[in-house]
């Protein structure tokens, strides 16, 4: 079958792009409409959010059309700087991320329509504005084609999400989270500003088009790449720049956490791809080592911290860190391959990266929304006070299970596909002409699989402690399932996970345009079997989730039938076995801390652990363990200490005595006069 690739030729009329801009404007208008009656839940929740969701769907459709068309559309709007009007561009890379934004925001917005209610800090109407501005800004980031528009959109995105994070600003912890978040976002944006400044390469044009054609020396190009890695890494949550992430995600309302984790982090990935593979032209292979190594470290770091968390949203946040690690590992591999001239394999690695982005958008949004429903139903984020919710909230529980299995990387769901692709691209590194990398790769691969396996551990902990077992608190008996809008949203995302898992081939075909754009190659497809996913033709490797699932389902059904038909036995309900000890209580179940224990034990150097152990004679023994990140002490505290020290030094300048101030003026005058005289 021919893959439908059109070579990048500017379309005469940017119809799809105008459509996208219109939809982004539509989001803005919807947001502003929320201000008409800011306190009305009905207006925001029942009308505006679902409307926004529909726009999201429309955006996904447009983006999908653009992706299949494979063309490039450009548009210049007469706003922005006087010398630099707003350049917009819709190409396959933008399209795939717009698709991601539109499709996942459809589910999230629907959910949000049912989620937000009065009395939770910010008024619904204002939330509606912030939320839709956030969406529109993310969209604009993806289609911006000059540095100024990009940065404006980038920071509006940060700002809107900051306000969303601090919805419940009365809680000091949340304020702190918001502050760290915005600070990191700003520092990241500063890096990006520098990066674009380097990228323009002296031509002094800040359109991306000019940057593509700028000729940078290797040194400057490397600087630009490093700055991009810093700037986008800070947004994506690459260790050690991830510190805002586990603070901000739990602080935000769940639909916002879902958007931030599922979509916003991907805009950083988009930026990294845009700069690393598009604006910088053909990358140098050893650039890839930085994202590769950082990504690997991030995987392990994120998943380990996820494993020891006791707050369900923090756990998911660290899991996002891990997944971002996966994505950056993929980016690193792509660059290593592309820089070494191995285009097809680079395309494979890029495919894995993009696929993982798509997957993560769906599954992490699903999980965050699931925790949102749990939070609403129980008011509890602490894993130690949850449990047994599968009985009370079957919709949430079963839909979340899909997300859990998907993110644990189990076939036939979507998480597995991208991990599979990533591992496949690792296995190709034998081709690389660099001995050092060839040695690095086995270790890298080991870390990736270790991370993937640990993710399974984390997810069992997450799901098991929240939904399974017996409720750990009496109050959980009053928990209720989520409303219909929320159900639709969750179902949409779960369906996305399943579809991405079952039809990888179709997705990969659609992604062909992107890989062609970025690395100049597409992963060839088997032409005989539409259901066969074979990444490279000269290797007989394949994966067919549909067949695979069918086989498994068939076997399971046959087993069920066989058992039912052959052994028609009664069954009885009874209390769980108590080992004869009597009075088992729900609190005797293993806890989240317990689940963290082996990890804490095994990977002690990663953690900074504070433990409070009970004495043997305690009447009310209490066990408490707090796990902190060493990163704070190793990186951030020295920085803030240094600034503090400098500030104190600067403060010595100002002692309050006017004589001293006059002396400053005097000396300044004398020194400058001398300078002027001697010049």
């Amino acid at each position: 079958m021919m893959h439908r690739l059109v070579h990048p030729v500017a379309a005469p009329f940017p119809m799809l792009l105008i459509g996208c801009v219109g939809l982004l404007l539509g989001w803005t208008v919807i947001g502003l409409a929320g201000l008409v009656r800011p306190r009305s839940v009905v207006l925001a929740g029942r009308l505006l959010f679902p409307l926004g969701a529909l726009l999201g769907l429309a955006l996904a459709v447009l983006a999908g059309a653009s992706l299949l068309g494979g063309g490039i559309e450009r548009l210049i709007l007469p706003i922005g700087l006087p010398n630099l009007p707003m350049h917009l561009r819709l190409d396959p890379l933008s399209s795939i991320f717009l698709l991601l934004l539109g499709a996942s925001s459809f589910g999230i917005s629907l959910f949000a329509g049912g989620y937000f209610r009065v009395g939770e800090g910010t008024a619904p109407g204002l939330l509606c504005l912030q939320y839709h501005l956030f969406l529109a800004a993310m969209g604009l980031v993806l289609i911006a084609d000059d540095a100024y528009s990009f940065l404006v959109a980038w920071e509006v995105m940060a700002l809107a999400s900051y306000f969303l994070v601090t919805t419940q600003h009365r809680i000091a912890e949340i304020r702190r989270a918001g502050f760290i978040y915005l600070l990191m976002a700003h520092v990241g944006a500063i890096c990006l500003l520098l990066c674009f400044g380097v990228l323009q390469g002296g031509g002094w044009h800040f359109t991306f088009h000019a940057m593509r054609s700028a000729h940078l020396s290797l040194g400057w190009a490397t600087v630009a790449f490093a700055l991009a890695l810093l700037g986008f890494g800070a947004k994506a949550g690459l260790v050690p720049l991830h510190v805002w992430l586990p603070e901000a995600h739990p602080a935000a309302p769940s639909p916002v956490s879902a958007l931030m984790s599922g979509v916003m982090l991907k805009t950083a990935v988009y930026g990294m791809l845009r700069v690393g593979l598009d604006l910088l032209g053909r990358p140098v292979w050893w650039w890839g080592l930085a994202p590769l190594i950082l990504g690997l470290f991030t995987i392990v770091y994120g998943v380990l911290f996820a494993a020891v968390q006791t707050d369900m949203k923090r756990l998911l946040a660290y899991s996002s860190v891990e997944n971002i690690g996966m994505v950056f590992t993929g980016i690193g591999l792509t660059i290593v391959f592309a820089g070494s001239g191995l285009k097809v394999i680079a395309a494979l690695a890029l495919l894995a990266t993009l696929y993982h982005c798509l997957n993560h958008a769906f599954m992490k949004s699903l999980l965050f929304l699931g925790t949102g429903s749990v939070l609403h139903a129980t008011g509890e984020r602490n894993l130690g006070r949850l449990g047994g919710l599968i009985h009370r909230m079957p919709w949430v529980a079963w839909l979340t299970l899909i997300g859990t299995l998907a993110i644990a990387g189990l076939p036939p769901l979507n998480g597995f596909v991208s991990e599979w692709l990533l591992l496949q691209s690792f296995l190709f590194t034998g081709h690389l002409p660099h001995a050092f990398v060839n040695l690095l790769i086995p270790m890298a691969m080991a870390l990736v699989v270790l991370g993937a396996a640990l993710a399974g551990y984390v997810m069992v902990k997450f799901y098991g402690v929240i939904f399974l077992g017996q409720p750990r608190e009496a109050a959980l008996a009053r928990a209720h399932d989520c409303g219909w809008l929320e159900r639709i949203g969750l179902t949409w995302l779960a369906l996305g996970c399943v579809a991405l898992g079952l039809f990888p081939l179709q997705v990969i075909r659609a992604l062909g345009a992107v890989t062609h754009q970025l690395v100049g190659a597409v992963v060839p497809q088997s032409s005989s079997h539409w259901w066969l996913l074979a990444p490279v033709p000269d290797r007989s490797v394949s994966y067919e989730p549909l067949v695979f699932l069918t086989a498994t389902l068939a076997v399971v059904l046959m087993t069920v039938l066989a058992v039912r038909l052959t052994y028609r036995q009664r069954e009885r309900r009874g209390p769980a076995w108590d080992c004869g000890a009597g009075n088992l209580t729900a609190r005797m179940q293993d806890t989240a801390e317990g689940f963290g224990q082996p990890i804490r034990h095994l990977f002690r150097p990663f953690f900074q652990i504070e433990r409070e152990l009970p004495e043997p004679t305690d009447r009310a023994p209490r066990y408490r363990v707090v796990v902190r990140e060493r990163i704070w002490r190793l990186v951030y505290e020295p920085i803030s200490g240094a600034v503090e020290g400098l500030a104190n030094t600067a403060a010595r300048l100002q002692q309050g005595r006017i004589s001293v101030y006059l002396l400053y003026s005097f000396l300044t005058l004398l020194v400058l006069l001398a300078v002027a005289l001697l010049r």
Partner: protein
Amino acid sequence: MTHLPLYQQLLDSCAALLLLLSFAMLSQRRVVALVNLYAVQGAVLAATTLLLAWRTGQDHLYVSAALTLALKVMLLPWLLHRLIRRLQVHRDTEPLLNVSGTMLVGLVIVVFAFSLAQPITRLASTATRSAIGIALAVVLLAFLMMITRRKAVSQVMGFLSMENGVLFGAMSASYGMPMIVELGMALDVLVAVLVLGVFFFQIRERFDSLDLHHLESLKEHQ
């Protein structure tokens, strides 16, 4: 030096006198004496202006001289004396740097000012151009005085003396400034002194003294 015409010698000696007065103000600790020295400085300035007016025949210099005389020799000293009497400040406390030290620094400053004035002197076409260095020195010495004083009143004297220096500079380098500017300057100085008067009373009312160490609470260094 001996070939110089009389008026030139007179001007030079006026300039020297000004410098001397500056040093005197720098070392003087009694506030009343400071005001008197200031008045003398004004008088010398007025004399110089008059001399220049007579020599160059520029009418506006007569006006300027009259203005200086009225303002700096009569009005301001009178106002200041009144203030000092009402506020009962007579002596400054020990300056921050002792007198000999201050003088030494002043000497260095004079040398610096003279070397600085070289290019200006070369440029100026006036008869008094050699005095520019002195004007600069007067300004800088007044600056030094402000730095080393602890009483609000003496600081103000430094400020006024500095203004004199600038005016002398203008005289010696270019026979004064355009009239409109000079009028504006005079108005400003007058208003400044009035405002300062208000200030002194406010400060005294609040702190019972005009010592500047009361005014050191707004600062960054704790």
